[in-house]
């Protein structure tokens, strides 16, 4: 009985195997494997919006984060995927593709020639909705540092974000507005939530600001852009995973009403970069081709 079962399985497998993939002929083109982020990701939304994609092909593999995308695309030589520009691609064996001739870089994003870009936005809890008055003042001070100081801008760009440094001032001039900075804040914890793409810039600024602000603690719980608004003003704002500042790697949607927040805005720009294996022959790609590939109508890279 068992033997019959096993024989049956083997037969199924053999038919399954042969219907999958090419037969080793050098001339048959390699099928491209598409990788995408999970549905809570702001990077995914920015990417799908930029290539005007309706429904993604069901052969796509979902990865959990920017880092996971790099790991998976790295080990699959027929892969195509997308990451944030702030991700460090050096030594990963991957290369970024030019979009219709434009090289993704800080300059092309700032002068608007590279089209796949998106803002890193933030939103806070409503005024008075914080665990304590001190925490609220600390959040205000942090956002002042992040948005208006040169030091903050430097940290963000060192971590890969794109900022326009004109109009920013030294933090020493802003310090005076925040009396919270003159005391020990090690009993306060800032909780953040939302996009995983903002993680490197967010962590760098929190780490740099902490010793300037009485050594407050912080907990980053980044799980995807749609959780950013939810956990400060939306359906989860009083739940298990509530946060003080929510981040998204896209603009906030119409359903995400930020008018009640204490503070909201954009702290830097980021771009979405299409990545492939560095040995691939393809160096440039058009938005239409990307749409065809991700919708499943085109199955090869070229």
């Amino acid at each position, binding site marked *: 009985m068992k033997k019959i079962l096993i024989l049956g399985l083997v037969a199924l497998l053999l038919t399954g195997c042969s219907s999958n993939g090419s037969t080793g002929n050098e001339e048959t083109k390699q099928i491209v494997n598409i990788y995408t982020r999970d549905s809570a990701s702001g990077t995914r939304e920015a990417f799908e919006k930029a290539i005007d994609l309706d429904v993604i092909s069901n052969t796509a593999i979902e990865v959990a984060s920017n880092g*996971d995308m790099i790991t998976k695309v790295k080990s699959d030589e027929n892969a195509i995927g997308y990451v944030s520009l702030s991700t460090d691609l050096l030594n990963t064996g991957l290369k970024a593709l030019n979009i219709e001739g434009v090289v993704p870089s800080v300059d092309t994003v700032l002068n608007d020639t590279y089209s796949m870009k998106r803002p890193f936005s933030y939103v806070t809890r409503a005024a008075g909705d914080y665990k304590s008055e001190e925490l609220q003042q600390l959040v205000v001070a942090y956002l002042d540092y992040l948005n208006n100081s040169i030091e903050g801008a430097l940290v963000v760009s060192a971590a890969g974000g794109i900022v326009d440094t004109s109009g920013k001032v030294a933090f020493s001039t802003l310090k005076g507005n925040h009396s919270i900075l003159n005391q*020990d804040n090690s009993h306060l914890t800032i909780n953040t939530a939302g996009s995983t793409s903002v993680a490197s810039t967010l962590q760098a600024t929190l780490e740099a600001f902490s010793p300037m602000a009485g050594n407050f603690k912080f907990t980053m719980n980044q799980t995807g852009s749609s959780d950013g608004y939810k956990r400060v003003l939306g359906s989860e704002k009083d739940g298990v995973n509530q946060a003080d500042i929510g981040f998204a790697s896209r603009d906030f949607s119409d359903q995400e009403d930020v008018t009640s927040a204490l503070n909201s805005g954009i702290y830097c720009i980021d771009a979405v970069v299409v990545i492939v294996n560095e040995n691939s022959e393809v160096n440039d790609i058009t938005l239409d081709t990307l749409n065809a590939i991700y919708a499943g109508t085109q199955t090869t890279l070229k």
Partner: protein
Amino acid sequence: MRKIKDYILNAITYIASGISVLILGVLLVYLLVNGVKSINLKMFSDDYWAKNYLVEVDSDSRNFDSKYNGDDYYIKKYDIAIKDDDKEIVVTYIGENSQFNELKSLTVGDSLGMITPFDVGYKIESIEYLDSNGVISIGGVLLKHNAIEVAQILNENHVNSIYYQSTSGGIKASIINTLILIFVSLLIATPISICSAIYLNEYNSKNKFNQLLSVSIETLAGVPSIIYGLVGITVLFPVTQLFGATTTSVLLGALTMAVILLPTMIKATQVALAQVDQGLKDASLSLGATKVQTINKVVLPGAMNGILSGLLLCVSKVIGESAALVYTMGTFISDTPSLTNQGTSLSLMIYSIMSNDNPNFELACAISLIILVIVLVLNISVKLINYKFNKLGQR
């Protein structure tokens, strides 16, 4: 013909066993190759998140009798050496009399003006200094300076403040969390298990009710641990809220773990109890002791070795568990282990690192090696206990 057939059959069993040894070998080699470089003693006492310091340094010159003769960039003014490492600037040498041993914290709070720790391996992030025109400028990794440029800045200018980070990637907190997890879950599971095993073995009155109890407990063993995680977060979360937990926590993980351990511990205790000589039990009863006295004074001590092995088996299970804890403890790697906060055990830490934004494969392999060593030690302990007990028994 017979002999050849026999020979082949024997050879096949050798090959089969060889395969398993080969797999173990490949696994160990793989972990060693990837993880050994990341293992250092500091790991065990470091925090996972780097500590951030903003300090001022004494810029007055000192005379150093410097003994440094390495390859890195030496900074004469302060008797330290730095080098480029990936995209960081790492300190590789600190002279005995260096001003960097007396850095004073500029952070408001209890530590204002106190000396901050500064060690080899720490990373210099940014420096605020007065350039040749007396203008306040910033240098360091933030402006994409490399080690040479930073060395130059430090040597030639008056420094206002320095922002540096301690080493990171340490597992101290996770180890403490794992210990808390083990302790609390065993604390809950052991008495319940021993009592249940005693009831099932010694008060076994073969009625349908007892059979139902027995079957229920046995079926528990076959439930995948991820189901326990689901149930834990719905049923046991309100219990932890009584203790003040507001999110997933180590306590919730421990409670869930205790339930997972029940079938294993009960079974191990049952086996241990069954091995106690029936004659001993009868003798005790006939001498007038009550059943409870017999159990406490005769049966339990005799089963102690089996119970200990069961306990060590449970410890291995706790260390190895990941799926249920992902649901109940969360995946945030915290540096402040506590019962009512989120945290990670060692296994969870590996899962968190691997599913993070920057999977640090080497660190994951290093932690795997540490877990393997702990588990190996536990296994050997079990064998030693059994060996010693058997020896005693033979006397």
